[in-house]
Every structure is written in C-alpha cells, then in structure tokens.
C-alpha cells in the first residue's frame, strides 16, 4: 500500500456521504448504479473498514446485478479471517461474487485426504493452500541449527513428498484449481552469512523445496504456484511481518499488507473465473509518451532510455509483455492521425510500434464511441476492454458511458505507470496457448482478409478465394488447455455457454459415449489456430450436443457448418438416429441463435432456459461447404489425455 496514512478531512466527509448515497440507491432498487458506486468507493479507499461495508452491501446486491460467482476455499496454517473481507471486496471490484470457505487451523492434510471433509462439501472452484514454512517444514525454521545437514535434507525431501501425496489425494476428490503458496525463507538465517555458503543451508533447502513444488505442480492439471517468498520480498520482509500479531493472534502479516495478500489471491481468481481483459486501448499523448505530439513535435515528446522518457519506455515494455500473453493492444487518442502515426512509426525512442496495435482510433471523436468501435472491430465484448489514459476526465467519461470497461487509474507520476498496468489482475493468465502468443500477428492477417473481402461479388467467391482448410481432431493432451480456455472465454458463437476447466474436460474425454472435437483453421492469409470446440454424448440412439462454440474471429465463414456436418456424419456412423442440441440464450450469444434452424433442425421443445433442436439423421444430413477442405485427424484422445499427466 502506498499511503496508509489517513485521508484528508473533505475526503472523509465524502466517504461517509458516499455510503449514505449507496444505501439510498439500494433502497430505490437502483442496483446497477449502487454497484458502480460501491466499486468506486472501494477503489478510492481500499481499507479494512471499507471492506466490511462493501461486503455487507454486496450481500444485498449479489442477486440483483450481474456478477460472476466463484467459490474459494482457503486451507491455512495462520489466521486469514481479516483478509477475507478485503479479498471479497477486491474480487467484487473485478465483477466477481466470491464465496469463501476457511478451513480449520492446520487441518489441511486431513481436509485433503478425507473425501467427506468440509473442504469437498463446499464444492470449491479453487483452493488456496496458505501454509507457512514454520508449519510445513518446522526443521527448516527456528530450530534449524539443531539438525544435521543430512536430517535437514531428509526433511526437505519429506516435505515435497507430502505435498505430492496431498495433491494426488486432492485430485481424486476434486477438479478445483489448487494454488500452492511457496515457502518463505526466514528473514534472518540461523547461521548468519554462513547459511548462503552451501546449497544445503536453510535458504538453500527452502529454495530447493520451492523448485520441487513447482515441478510437482506441473505434473497435475490445474495446480499452480503462488510465489509467497517473492511476494514478501517485493514488499520487504520487515514491513510485511508483524511479530506481535503473530504471537498474539496467529496473523503473521502487518495491517498495511493484509490488502496485498488479498490482491495476490485475486490475481489468480480473476483468470480462473474468466473475468479477463482481452484488449487494452491506450491513449498516446502523456500516456505512451511524455508531451503532446501535435504541439511538441517529434523532437519534443519524451520517450527514450533516459529520464523522463524512460518512464514511458517502461510502460511500453509492460504493454509488449501483455501483447506476448495474447492481450491485444489498441490506440484511442485525440490527435491528428498523421502526427500520431509519424511518432508511432518513426520516433527512435518508441518500443511499441504501429504494427503492435490491432486497432487504431486516432481522431477527435468521443473516446467511448471509439472504444465501442474497437470492440466491434476486434469482435470482443465491451467488458473485455481495458482503457489506459492519463487524463482523469477521459477516464470518468468512459466509466460513466461504458461501466463494463476496466478503467485503469494511472497515478500522477509517470514512473509508476508501468506498475499500474502490471498490477491489473485482468491481464493475468495461468496458461498460454500457441494462439495467445501469436494473436497480434493473427489480427494483422485478419485486417488483410477484411480488405480482400470487399473486392468480391459474392460471399461464395470470397470463401473460395480464402482457400480455407480445417483440421478436425479429438481432444488430446496437446489441445486440452486451449479447448478448456475456449469454453471459458467464448461468449458470442456459443450455443450453450457451458464453462469447463482443464480437469473437467480431461474427465469428460474419458467417459464412454462422450466425444470432444476441436477444429483448427488456416487460410491463404495465415493460421487461425484452434478456433472451435464441439462436445457430444450419445444416449441410446440420440446424440446430444453439449457444447458447440467458435472463436469470434472466424464467425461467418461457414466453419461452423463444417464442424456440424462432421458431428452429424459421425453420429450417424455410430448408429444414432437423431442429433439434438440446446440453444441457451445469453446476453451475448445472439450470433448463434438461428444456427440449428438454418441447418434444418426442428424445434422439439422450449422452456425458460432455452430451446431444444433436433435433426433426423435418417432423413437429412448437414453438408460440409465445398470451399472448405476438411481433414480428419484420428487419434486416440483418451489415452493421450490419460498418458499426458498424472491423475
């Protein structure tokens, strides 16, 4: 926390007025506005008292506003209760309604081993294992000097083995994500500077355990490491710890840093719950560079290796790091396009260039209008956008017009810009697919395609020109991560919007009569990667489509028909007489609404949730468009998934 010291008087008065206003809005049933104000209140004053207020009001709002529900269990060896309200308030600011279960002190081993424990009855989406070194590896903590090097080494090995067994048992009972705290090193080694002179000192052994834990984690699906040792180091061990609190209440963390613990957990919860940002739109003047290009000119703007330009280079480096994680960059700037483009393309100090931006809006139009256009052009929802601008006025305008957008509050000092971007949990990812790493290039190819489309008389001519080639294959260990990711991220062309984690997909792939297909697409402009998923299961003579989705960047070029044609054909080959599927409408999946009808399905029933469609496979079929070359890749998916990693 940058400034734990009290706020000024006027802010104080404002804050209590704000609480009254929020309660007034709730009383008037203005829930969306109340929810926005509550978020703002939290951003302005993220403190323990505010957290209590926010969580109590979230209780009143949770069923009235659109929040993503998420269940987190915390297994622990220390007092975490005061962290929980801060955690729930911070999650709320990211649009997540977080329910938290806290395990008893030091019962994490029993909780993991016992399939009937309160941990599993809670049915968590994710579990944090917040265990400290003094508990996990007592030999390596206070009394280290009492042990021989051999005994200490054995203790380290025993710790890793214990974690491995705990995780294996956990995976038997739960598909939830598991987040392991790494073990922290003591702030003062028992043997002083002698400790670091060997690999088997106190620090060396704890580092060894952490390395091994990371290795064990990668052997299982959905098990992740949280570098607690690095988190403590980032804030400074002496600041982070409060020995008085530890001895009296078993809370090891000082009051000013409890929030940082909560934030670190939220960095995992946001990507796990799918509330991620896909596109970051940035301003140019005084954001990407110092100064105003239209006034200061090429030689006047500040960006380079020296101060003050170095602050802007640091921000640009942070943006390039996001782009490597698959987050698209866009420009939203009030400028003359020629001036801005010259700086983007030619200024010697720039690290980010025009080619790194998937969409450019350099004009004098209102920024919220530009953001809407950027979302349209890149085929993402408004809620997948983040906005970066040094001007508080622009930020408030965007917040008011487009409350779904993640608006990053830039601090006054440009030296802090880069960390403001890096600290935004919306940009966190837990896995990276090949598609993520190449996304910027793919969008560049997409721009060429859109240009080409305009030169054709008919859609068919354009489709033929594209020379699309699709590859269909059962899910495998290679594609599992991407398949799960698509079920979590795809909103528009998604018939049922069922979200699955990696372990859940792996589990389904093993079930008899279930089939999981993925489709990859390439065309004359480049490779789109894995863009579609279909999951079906046979019930007697009927094959039901559980999931059918397509990444938004390939909607409307008939790949969906090719995929459906394959489902129908393979179901018929297995002896099924009907292919059926639900369409479950959401706010966003209108593009998929008429899909079954357009392909000759008849509506069989409808209820409050959606409609069930059916195709008689004995009388009709779905034809694969002749302009798509469809390759079937056969592989025994289940064995590959099984062999890929331990269960």
């Amino acid at each position, binding site marked *: *926390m940058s400034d734990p010291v009290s706020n000024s008087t006027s802010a104080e008065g404002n804050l*209590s007025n704000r609480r009254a206003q929020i309660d007034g809005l709730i009383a008037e049933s203005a829930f969306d506005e109340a929810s926005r104000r509550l978020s703002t209140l939290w951003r302005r004053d993220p403190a*323990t*008292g505010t957290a*209590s207020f926010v969580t109590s009001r979230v209780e009143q709002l949770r069923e009235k506003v659109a929040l993503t529900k998420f269940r987190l269990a915390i297994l622990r060896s220390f007092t975490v209760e*005061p962290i929980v309200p801060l955690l729930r308030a911070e999650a709320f600011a990211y649009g997540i309604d977080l329910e938290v279960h806290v395990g008893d002190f030091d019962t994490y081993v029993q909780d993991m081993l016992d399939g009937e424990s309160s941990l599993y009855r809670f049915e968590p989406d994710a579990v944090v294992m917040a265990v400290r070194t003094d508990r996990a590896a007592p030999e390596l903590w206070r009394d280290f000097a009492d042990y021989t090097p051999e005994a200490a080494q054995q203790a380290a090995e025993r710790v890793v083995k214990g974690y491995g067994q705990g995780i294996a048992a956990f995976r038997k009972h739960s598909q939830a994500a598991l987040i392991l705290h790494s073990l922290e090193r003591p702030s003062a080694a028992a043997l002083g500077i002698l400790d670091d002179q060997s690999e088997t000192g106190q620090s060396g052994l704890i580092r060894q355990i952490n390395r091994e834990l990371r290795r064990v984690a990668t052997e299982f699906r959905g098990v992740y490491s949280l570098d607690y040792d690095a988190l403590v180091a980032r804030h400074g061990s002496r600041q982070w710890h409060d020995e*008085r609190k530890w*001895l009296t209440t078993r809370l090891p963390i000082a*009051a000013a840093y409890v929030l940082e613990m909560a934030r670190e957990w939220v960095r995992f919860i946001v990507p796990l719950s799918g509330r991620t940002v896909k596109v970051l739109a940035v301003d140019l003047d005084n954001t990407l560079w110092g100064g105003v290009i239209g006034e200061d000119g090429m030689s006047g703007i500040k960006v380079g290796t020296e101060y003050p330009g170095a602050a802007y280079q640091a921000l640009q480096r942070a943006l390039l790091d996001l782009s490597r994680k698959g987050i698209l960059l866009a420009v939203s700037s009030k400028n003359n396009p020629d001036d801005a483009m010259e700086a983007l393309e030619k200024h010697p100090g720039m690290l980010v260039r025009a080619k790194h931006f998937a969409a450019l809006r350099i004009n004098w139009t209102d920024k919220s209008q530009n953001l809407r256009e950027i979302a349209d052009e890149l085929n993402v929802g408004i809620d997948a956008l983040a906005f970066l601008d040094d001007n508080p006025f622009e930020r408030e305008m965007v917040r008011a017009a487009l409350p779904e957008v993640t608006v990053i509050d830039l601090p006054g000092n440009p030296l802090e810009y880069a960390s403001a971007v890096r600290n935004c949990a919306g940009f966190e990812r837990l896995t990276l697919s090949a598609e993520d790493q190449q996304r910027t290039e793919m969008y560049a190819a997409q721009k060429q395609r859109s240009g080409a489309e305009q030169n054709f008389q008919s859609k068919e001519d354009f489709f033929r020109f594209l020379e699309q080639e699709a590859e269909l294959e059962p899910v495998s260990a290679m594609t599992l991560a991407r398949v799960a990711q698509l079920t979590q991220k795809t909103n528009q062309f998604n018939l049922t919007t069922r979200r699955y984690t990696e372990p859940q997909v792996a589990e389904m792939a093993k079930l008899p009569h279930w089939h999981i297909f993925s489709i990859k697409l390439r065309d004359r402009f480049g490779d789109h990667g894995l863009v579609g998923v279909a999951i079906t299961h046979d019930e007697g003579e009927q094959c039901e489509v559980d999931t059918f989705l397509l990444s938004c960047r390939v909607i409307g070029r008939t790949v969906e028909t090719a995929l459906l044609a394959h489902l129908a054909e393979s179901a018929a080959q297995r002896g099924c007489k009907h292919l059926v599927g639900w369409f479950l409408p959401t706010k966003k999946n209108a593009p998929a609404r008429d899909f079954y009808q357009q392909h000759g399905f008849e509506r069989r029933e409808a209820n409050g949730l959606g409609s069930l469609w059916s195709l008689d496979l004995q009388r009709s079929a779905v034809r694969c468009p002749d302009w798509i070359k469809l390759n079937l890749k056969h592989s025994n998916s289940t064995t590959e998934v099984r062999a890929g990693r331990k269960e």
Partner: protein
Amino acid sequence: MTESTFDQVRSIASDIFGIPADKVTAESSPETIENWDSMQHLNLVLAIEEKFALQLEPEDIEQMKNIGAVAALVEKLQSAAR
C-alpha cells in the same frame, strides 16, 4: 479543521460492526455492540493500525475496551510519535 480522532474511529467502528455511525458513542463496547467479538476486535485493531499508520502493542490492544478508549489510545500514540 481536521476531523477529530474520535469521529474517525467512530466511522471505522460503524463499518466494522455494521451499525450507523450516530449509534456509536464513546461508551460503546463489546457489551453494547453485539458484533464486537474477538474476530471483529482484530479487524478493528487492523483498521486502526492501517488508518493511523500505527503498530499497536499487545498491551495497547488490551486497553481498547470501548470506543472512547480506542480514540484516546490513538491520540496518545500519535502525540508520543511527534
């Protein structure tokens, strides 16, 4: 004029115990506030430390028997730090 320490402590207590600020008095204590259990007491301690950038000793925490005592403690520690 700065807001008095008591008022600041009162608004923290109002948030943490979930009662309107005008219902919190100097005499409010675990006997009069239903929610004031040991866990909320820890939250109150953390909120006070955070707000006034203090670190309270276990002996200080024992003195926090009602809201008036909390405000007096904060003022004492602040003037000692000056």
